[in-house]
């Protein structure tokens, strides 16, 4: 035990310096994402373009063009920030007068509300990625989880202490059920999980329509594709009470538990170790006595379960019911989860930050759209560009000339210790 302290210290320093590198790349990818966004704003805003066309017409024209560019881009990104995090003016007002806190906190509350299911579903996708499994079916699993949780939330009537946990478990189980299909098929027949999960998504979407149009689940007296409203005892209540007007719910606690669980699972549990070994080297996993079959089935149960949980959390903290368009199209959190997991490098904390970023871009993008008229899709473009650059670190290193020098310094720095 005498040399435990220096070893641990060395490990921590070494780990930080080496992990510094991907984080540096991620930060530069963020910057690039916003630069590309700025270019798009410039080239699609007529007034800015006109100003640039006229720069040779008068002495003041170039200055005017530059000013107009900064005004427009600045306004867009400012509204994105104030719409998703906090408006400094409003914050100062609230701080000095003690009033209007609900208005001041609404942007961050909305971001957290959007981030909550993203964190949960992306963690599941990230665990699958670490095991070498490409779970494209997270969205279908989330939908089935939403339905399963929804059925418990509407059909069963119990006190909240039992009802809410039961509904959350039902969501988990629904996702596991959807996940077990590709898991079992891959484990026992070798069917490729990407194909199976994509196909299964459509099966689940069809089942969703069937469920919300069928008698017990459909809202009574409705012809539309919408479910009954969840019992109050099965809704995730607002974290600061209904009176606060803030939507952020107890779902954030569920997400926090999931992040801690995922960290423990991957870093500390024996099964998580099996998962990581399988993901890093399937041959060595086999030779070391890890059963590929049970790993595949288990990873789909866990990944699918988390997706299902996310689906129910989403419904139980926002709409309190499910309609035929639940998580369909742009709302497909299971697909966003793939990019979030990638951005977060499949690690729980990374996924937490990436989810917050994506949620903020989405919420802020909406604010930007309503206040400046720049379409919400710009936020999607920025998200995509960031992921693109993160996925191609070589490109980022090349653009910012991060190449050999910093890499060598980092390596040398770590090599210097402990020898």
């Amino acid at each position, binding site marked *: 035990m005498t040399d435990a302290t220096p*070893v641990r210290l*060395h490990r921590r320093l070494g780990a930080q310096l080496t992990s510094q590198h991907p984080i540096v790349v991620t930060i530069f990818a963020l910057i690039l994402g916003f630069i590309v966004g700025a270019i798009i704003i410039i080239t699609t805003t007529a007034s800015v373009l006109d100003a640039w066309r006229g720069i040779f017409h008068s002495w003041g024209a170039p200055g005017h063009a530059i000013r107009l560019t900064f005004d427009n881009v600045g306004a867009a990104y400012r509204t994105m920030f104030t719409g998703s995090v906090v408006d400094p003016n409003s914050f100062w007002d609230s701080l000095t007068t003690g009033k209007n806190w609900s208005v001041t906190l609404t942007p961050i509350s909305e971001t957290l509300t959007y981030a909550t299911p993203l964190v949960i579903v992306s963690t599941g996708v990230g665990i699958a990625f670490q095991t070498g499994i490409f779970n494209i079916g997270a969205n279908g699993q989330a939908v089935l989880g939403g339905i399963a949780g929804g059925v418990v939330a509407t059909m069963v009537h119990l006190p909240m202490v039992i009802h809410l946990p039961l509904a959350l478990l039902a969501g988990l189980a629904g996702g596991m059920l959807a996940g077990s299909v590709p898991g079992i098929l891959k484990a026992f027949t070798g069917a490729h999980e990407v194909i199976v999960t994509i196909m299964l998504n459509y099966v689940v979407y069809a089942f969703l329509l069937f469920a919300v149009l069928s008698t017990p689940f459909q809202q009574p007296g409705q012809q539309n594709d919408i479910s009954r409203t969840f019992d109050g005892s099965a809704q995730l209540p607002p974290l600061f009470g209904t009176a606060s007007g803030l939507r952020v719910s107890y779902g954030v606690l569920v997400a926090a538990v999931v992040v801690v669980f995922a960290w423990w699972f991957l870093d500390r*549990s024996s099964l998580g*170790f*099996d998962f990581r070994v399988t993901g*890093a080297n399937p041959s*060595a996993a086999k030779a070391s*006595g890890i059963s590929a079959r049970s790993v595949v089935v288990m990873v789909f149960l866990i990944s699918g379960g988390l997706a299902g949980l996310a689906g129910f959390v989403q419904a139980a903290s926002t709409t309190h019911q499910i309609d035929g368009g639940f998580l369909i199209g742009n709302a497909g959190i299971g697909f966003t989860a793939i990019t979030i997991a990638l951005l977060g490098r499949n690690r729980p904390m990374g996924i937490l930050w990436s989810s917050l970023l994506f949620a903020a871009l989405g919420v802020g993008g909406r604010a930007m759209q309503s206040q400046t008229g720049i379409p919400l899709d710009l936020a999607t473009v920025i998200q995509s560009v960031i992921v693109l650059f993160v996925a191609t670190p070589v490109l980022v290193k090349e653009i910012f000339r991060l190449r050999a020098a910093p890499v060598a310094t980092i390596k040398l720095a770590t090599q210097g210790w402990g020898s």
Partner: protein
Amino acid sequence: MTTIDVMRLELRGITKRFGSLTANDQISITVEPGQIHSLLGENGAGKSTLMNVLFGLLTPDEGEILINGEPVQITNSGDAVRRGLGMVHQHFMLVPVFTVTENVVLGFEPTKSLNRVDYRKATEDILRLSRQFNLDVDPDAVVERLPIGLQQRVEILKALSHDAELLILDEPTAVLTPQEIDALMEIMRSLAAAGKSILFITHKLKEVKAVADVITIIRQGRVVGTAEPTASESELASMMVGRDVELTVHKEPFSPGGDVFEIRDLVVRDERGLAAVNGVSLSVRAGEILALAGVQGNGQTELVEAIAGMRTVESGSITLNGRDITNHSPREVLDAGLGHIPEDRQRDGLVMSMSVADNLVLNTPRRVPFARRGTRDLAAVQAHAVQLIKDFDIRTESPQELVSSLSGGNQQKVIVARELSRALEFLVASQPTRGLDVGSIEYVHRQMVEHRNHGNAALVVSSELDEVLALGDRIAVMYAGKISGVVDPSTSRETIGLLMTGTKVEQPHD
């Protein structure tokens, strides 16, 4: 075509740096015409870098290359070939479905009118060269049907047909049987007699002594000395490693106990559905190392995989301490006390992206004290690693170092440490020293013999005859999926060599 009739190659002060690492440091070597010049060095000593510099694949930071006294710039491998350098690679660069002639002319086809390939001329050239140097190659044979030794000669022919005056043979004997090695040495001698220069790169001391005129030893990128072929093996080894090396392993007298491990009439199929192991029966006693010799690809890989539970057994049985473990899962086999040092350590033995500590518990992560009730005890894993790093002299900065940053020898030590530190009933080691330097080979051999001296049983599969002879208490030879003989380690190399080619030999034991 104009040709240089003889070549005197001189490398002067070649230095090549990669960042802070100096792979070649002021290397100077002169290869005289008609000389077999052996370049002896461990893996990572800088031999490959030097050859890549010579072949124009890397540009040296300092130094120059002189051919017949004139400085030359070699910027790519085509350049090198035009200047009369020929390379015979460790892994052959041949098209398996082409004939010898087609392979030899590939890329340099002699043409007649209308741009047609002149095969007749090519065939004649090959026959002439083949006769001149006693290569004995049929120009019309399809390469994939030729034995490895002959395929290598096709590579040599290919270099000769491009008028190579200096041949570089890069670890040419790794894949050959003892008889093929002898034949290759003969060819090298006749090439040298005809005035060709040969740069012979190897780490095998016996071969160097047998064939080289001059030996240059490099270590850590520097020339550490030259030696005459009369130098003893241990002198050469200590120059190569930089310290005294024990080439022979001390073994306690052989006193076997009862049968620990037994294979009966085993049949195992490979990926193509062929019976790669075709009726093998073997038994290993306590306190015994059974060495399984044989040229690679005669079913040893499949046999070991079947024993380790990684490949389905079609028929026959495998028993460990009287317990049938045929077709048990790898987990069950490991739990039954089988230790396995896999042939391909990076594919089957290690997870390169994980730490040394994690790799040291790779196949026992759930055992107390490494985990309790599904939760890993990282402190126990760390303590275990610290202990094994000390006991097995694994050179690593810390237990948390990624295994990928260790040298090959230390990676193998991680596997050896992991397997031998468990309570084993039986150890299977497949090519346990492949690609390792002399120092690491010495170490691994000592560990295995010590394991055996403690009364444990082991099966060591190796295509290196030296290893088989050094370790085996009995030697089984495998050929074409069958055991062609089980012999005593006092048996001559020639006899074992013959068994490796499937030739029937009078055997005292069977």
